[in-house]
């Protein structure tokens, strides 16, 4: 067995097995996130939500997937065919690709690379391409307006997100995701860096085009925004990609601020629960807040969105970065 795993075929087989072990639960989680969102929204609006297919409507995601598969894929006559088909694939692929570096437990990352956080940031900054290509390739004005909005929005919020990440990196002294979580063994970064956590969370909402920043798909004025021309599985890939991105952003927030796989306190009943479970709990908590926000807040106007990104978050995160750096230097807390 050991000998086989050292051969190129063995390495490939092992990598595929690892990827499957991560992606299959992830995809099931994506499916049930769509169900959970409908249930939570329903509860918040005093409705029942999906309750017909299976017990508590638990089979609803699979019924939806089957329906999507059966529908016809329509490609508009004026569309740029290759790019039109490529765009949803890019969106979905990027949402999966980032998981290669996520450490679910100490040492449980498929690729534990030196610059893990930069890799994550790079992948999340690429997410805009799926949307902008979809909007352009559709050759439709609504789709194009949605794509333009999305491009401007995602680039704006990436800036403050970058500063948040840099602040965390200063406290850790490493770009490796496992090291970032290990640095939070005693205290999660949400406590000393709470304002940064808030900025990160709101930027994550904007990055994933979630309410109250879902202007790229604003159904009231843009019909459905960038994916208005998409149908069947190509639409489903966008839909699943959005939810996979939500889970990814929650994982990123968990790693940066909520102590990854560590329990909140290292005491008896809490540390019996294994690390990966804590990791998933924290992701689920973030996802619940994502949905909660959607049920609570009205959509931002576009100029308000830009104002928040550039005039509030950018100066604030920059100032907090300097304050953190000064505090680390003054009190001698700089990591070696």
């Amino acid at each position, binding site marked *: 067995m050991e000998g086989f795993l050292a051969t*190129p075929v063995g390495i490939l087989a092992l990598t595929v097995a690892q990827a499957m072990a991560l992606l299959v639960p992830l995809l099931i989680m994506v499916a049930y996130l769509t169900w959970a969102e409908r249930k939570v929204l329903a509860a918040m609006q*005093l409705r029942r939500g999906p309750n017909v297919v299976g017990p508590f409507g638990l089979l609803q995601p699979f019924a939806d997937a089957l329906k999507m598969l059966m529908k016809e894929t329509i490609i508009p006559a004026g569309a740029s065919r290759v*790019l039109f088909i490529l765009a949803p694939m890019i969106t979905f692929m990027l949402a999966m690709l980032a998981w290669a570096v996520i450490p679910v437990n100490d040492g449980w990352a498929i690729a534990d*690379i*030196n*610059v893990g956080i*930069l*890799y994550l*940031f*790079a992948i999340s*900054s*690429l997410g*805009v*391409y799926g949307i*902008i*290509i979809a909007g*352009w390739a559709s050759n439709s004005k609504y789709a*194009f307006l949605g*794509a*333009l909005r999305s*491009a*401007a929005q*995602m*680039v704006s919020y*990436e800036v403050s997100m970058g500063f948040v990440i840099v602040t965390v990196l200063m406290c850790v002294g490493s*770009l490796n995701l496992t090291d970032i979580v290990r640095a939070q063994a005693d205290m999660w970064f949400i406590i000393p860096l709470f304002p940064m956590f808030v900025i990160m969370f709101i930027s994550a909402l904007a990055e994933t085009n979630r309410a109250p920043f879902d202007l790229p798909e604003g159904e009231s004025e843009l019909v459905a925004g960038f994916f208005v021309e998409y149908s069947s599985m190509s639409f489903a890939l966008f839909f699943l990609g959005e939810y996979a991105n939500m889970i990814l952003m929650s994982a990123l927030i968990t790693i940066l601020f909520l102590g990854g796989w560590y329990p909140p306190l290292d005491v008896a009943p809490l540390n019996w629960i294994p690390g990966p479970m804590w990791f998933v709990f924290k992701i689920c908590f973030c996802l619940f807040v994502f949905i909660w926000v959607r049920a609570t807040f009205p959509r931002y106007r576009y*100029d*308000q969105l830009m*104002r928040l990104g550039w005039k509030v978050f950018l100066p604030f995160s920059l100032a907090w970065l300097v304050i953190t750096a000064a505090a680390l230097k003054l009190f001698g807390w700089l990591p070696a």
Partner: protein
Amino acid sequence: MTVAAFYLFAAVLVASAVMVVTSRNPVHSVLFLILAFFNAAALFLIAGAEFLAMILVIVYVGAVAVLFLFVVMMLDVDFAKLREGFQRYAPIGGVVGAILFLELVLVFGTWTFATDAAGLRLNPTPEGVDNTRALGRILYTDHVFLFQLAGLILLVAMIGAIVLTLRGKPTSKRQDVARQIARAGSVNLRQPPLGAGLGQIGIERPPVEPPPEAKPKQVEHAGHGGGHH
């Protein structure tokens, strides 16, 4: 294995760079440019410069190319007209290209390597330090003033661009968020019972004032029988 990967990425890089120049549609050009960036990042990875690879993707693919794409998509380019000009401008382009080529030849002809260059190239990072830290030391410790100077130049360029494009439009309406929130009665906190629907709570609305002049006029209209005009 590594050599094969290098040639693969290098070949795709060169091919996509050629496509950037030759493709008819400017949007396709930008997309090929992005592909070229990706392959360059892969080449950095093969060289062991993982930090540079990631920065290339974040800065160029994630931000600069998005803005390129943004602008190019909104341009209404007439491709036939673009090709028309090719014959006219070809000689000038040729001359400029030839001059640049000559200059490059001169530069490379007189190029001499520093005496310790060969050693440095074999060992791009110092012992026991990963290349992110090594780069940080060079930029922020050894050459911090030059680095700051470069930053200042970029800042000046940015301010220049803003000054050139900023026009104070008297017609544009600006929102003063602080004033809006501070306005009396703009935010009204209340505590509805949990789980109660809107019907149970009973919604309170500010009393609607009747429009001041509408009523007497309508009475008058009614008196005339209405609908005649």
